[in-house]
């Protein structure tokens, strides 16, 4: 695996043969390091997805809490179109006109920081009340906010919410016993409801305080989120795109094929056409950048008029998925490794010449 980046090659070309070997060695080591980092990021993202699906589960259509309380999972990432820090899930009760926005945290190192981040996102939600009303197509009388985290992290979040007096309900997810519950952060229920740390809806509050166990275990409703790792999204979308093309006996596809496919994705239900367009465009651009897709009409400017095909082996869905993964890893690991290798090389040189600098300084004094 080698670098083709002109800047990197230019820098490399300016070095002596001996230094080039040093740079190449650092570059090779960095590729493995960067791949490991990407894999770690993908894994963290999937852990987050487990938690998101866990939270969605009791609020799905005709699931326990939907039946009992009327609260229904509406969509993921309601502020996607704003490109701002977002909540993961929007749950709406059409009778009481109450909306719950949930942020899922699969790992927590600093409870204070996480709570501060959610407080900022609450401000976004308050600033964009009209947008939320547009999403649910209704007047919203009450907005409530929740952080959901694995049961083990609750002790880190509890004091942070209390100390900040944050209007946040704390949900605890025990993914192994499959119980989702609401934590009571203060003794005075009415005061806690008023301060937004317990849900106002009596039945929802009582059921969640008791703990809700899924009837048969949480399902994976969303295979990805719009903010999921791009490699995961590309794998998920390319597999379906491949099956669609195979079924219709086609090799080439258009932007509309990607858009139509995304419209049917459960992860993107209740997304507007503009949001879907933006998502499809972003996905296609990344696919083209890393070589998963090829642009067959480079002279056509209008994206809707363009034709594309897979730039990877696509004999089977398995080969498509492997191809996406390999291209993503290679492209991003190389790119990052180039930057790191140059930095590391410069740092080593600087260190090498430090004693000389010190000597010069000593002489001048």
């Amino acid at each position, binding site marked *: 695996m080698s670098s083709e980046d002109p800047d990197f090659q230019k820098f490399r070309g300016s070095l002596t043969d001996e230094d080039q070997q040093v740079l190449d060695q650092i570059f090779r080591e960095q590729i493995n390091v960067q791949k490991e980092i990407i894999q770690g990021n993908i894994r963290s993202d999937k852990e987050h997805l487990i938690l998101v699906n866990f939270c969605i589960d009791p609020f799905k259509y005709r699931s326990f809490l939907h039946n009992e309380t009327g609260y229904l999972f509406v969509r993921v990432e309601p502020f996607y179109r704003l490109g701002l820090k977002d909540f993961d899930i929007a749950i709406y009760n059409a009778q009481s006109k109450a909306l719950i926005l949930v942020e899922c945290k699969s790992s927590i190192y600093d409870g204070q920081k996480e709570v501060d981040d959610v407080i900022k996102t609450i401000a976004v939600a308050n600033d964009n009340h009209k947008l939320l009303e547009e999403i649910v197509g209704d007047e919203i009388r009450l907005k409530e906010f929740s952080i959901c985290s694995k049961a083990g992290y609750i002790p880190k979040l509890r004091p942070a919410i209390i100390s900040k007096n944050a209007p946040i309900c704390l949900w605890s997810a025990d993914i*192994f016993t499959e119980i989702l519950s609401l934590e009571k952060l203060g003794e005075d229920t009415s005061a806690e409801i008023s301060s937004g740390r317990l849900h106002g809806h009596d039945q929802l509050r009582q059921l969640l305080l008791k703990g809700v166990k899924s009837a048969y275990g949480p399902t994976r409703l969303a295979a990805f989120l719009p903010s999921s790792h791009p490699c995961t999204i590309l794998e998920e979308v390319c597999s379906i795109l491949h099956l669609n093309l195979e079924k219709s006996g086609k090799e080439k596809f258009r932007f509309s094929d990607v858009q139509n496919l995304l419209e049917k994705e459960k992860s993107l239900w209740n997304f507007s056409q503009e949001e879907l367009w933006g998502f499809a465009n972003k996905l296609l651009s990344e696919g083209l950048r890393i070589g998963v897709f090829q642009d067959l009409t480079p002279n056509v400017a209008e994206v809707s008029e363009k034709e594309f095909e897979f730039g990877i082996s696509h004999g089977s869905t398995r080969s498509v998925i492997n191809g996406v993964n390999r291209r993503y890893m290679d492209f991003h690991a190389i790119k990052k490794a180039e930057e790191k290798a140059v930095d590391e090389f410069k740092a080593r040189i600087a260190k090498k010449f430090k004693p000389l600098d010190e000597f010069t300084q000593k002489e001048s004094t």
Partner: protein
Amino acid sequence: MKIPFANYSIESFYKVLTSRPEEYRMMKILCLNAYFKSWAPPDKFLTLDGIFRKHGFSLRQMGEIMELETTYVDPETEETVPVTYYAYLSPEDQILRCFTMASTREIEKTIEPLSVESGLYHLWISPSAFEQIKNVILSERPHTKITFFSATRKPSMGFRGKIRPDVERTIMYYGDDGKETLEELKYYYGVVPRTIEFHIPGIVDMQIAARGIFTYLRGELDFLLNFSERAIEIALEVRRILERSRLDTVSVRTARKELKVPYMVPWIVDFSQPLDSSGCEILMEELSKNQFTLYNHIMVEGSLRFDATVVDETKKSIFEISATKDRMIVSPRYETQFDSFLRFLETVVENFDPNATCKGAYEV
């Protein structure tokens, strides 16, 4: 096997068979699960008729019976052998019953490859259904002998025998004490029966294979025809569960909008033994060998949690799985029909956990 050309109902076809049973010794009834209720509904793009023609069969309508003809080249003699099936598609249970004198090899080379087609899959008799069928015969006809059986074991199966459990084995047994021997070999060698031959004194000799094939050997053909219906009914319980699984779009009205939300009914595999991370690796490997591709997967250890997207490379469908140590929830996503789920369940049961059972998720 040649049935005179006529306009048959299933009853009159059976009459032809049962009037001269000696001519049909070794006749097999091969059963296929079909998505279809008729051969060529005019409004459908994908038809049963079309699938058979695509695979080189010529079809001739004989009332409710369809004559299916194809050829097979014997690899030893290089001779082209004609192979004929007389098929009846029941609109009630959507089982295609194919009557033939073809050999097992001819069946494997001609009609079984159709199981890859969307909407068609062999009638898989799960180990628990097979046990139930066997027990029905043995309890209702206590003098029945099992005179032959074949049984297999794969090292990937969680259910372990007592003797050298890591050895892959196939046992073929002939003997009048097959009933007892099968139980002993199951216990000691962990094998799962694939074919059983029953000798019901004074009534019938017949074979039942887990791939949904009933073979008439001698005696009352009527008995086999009737009993096969009962066996099909037992085997179909699994399909009925899988068919209830679905993914619908539901419209929910708010003041100014019609929201679109998913309504998903998954199905569940209950494992007979707790699944751990090494078991999960074995399961993934077995699924992969059987043309299922797992991706976007994550395994969280502790008490196990495993999520993945699954592509059925054969049936061209995609679904989601979510497993804990006790069970796996399977949720439809893209073009999933019962046949893909059936193929998945068969792979899990036949290669990993022969005592696993399936059930529907609660519909509320």
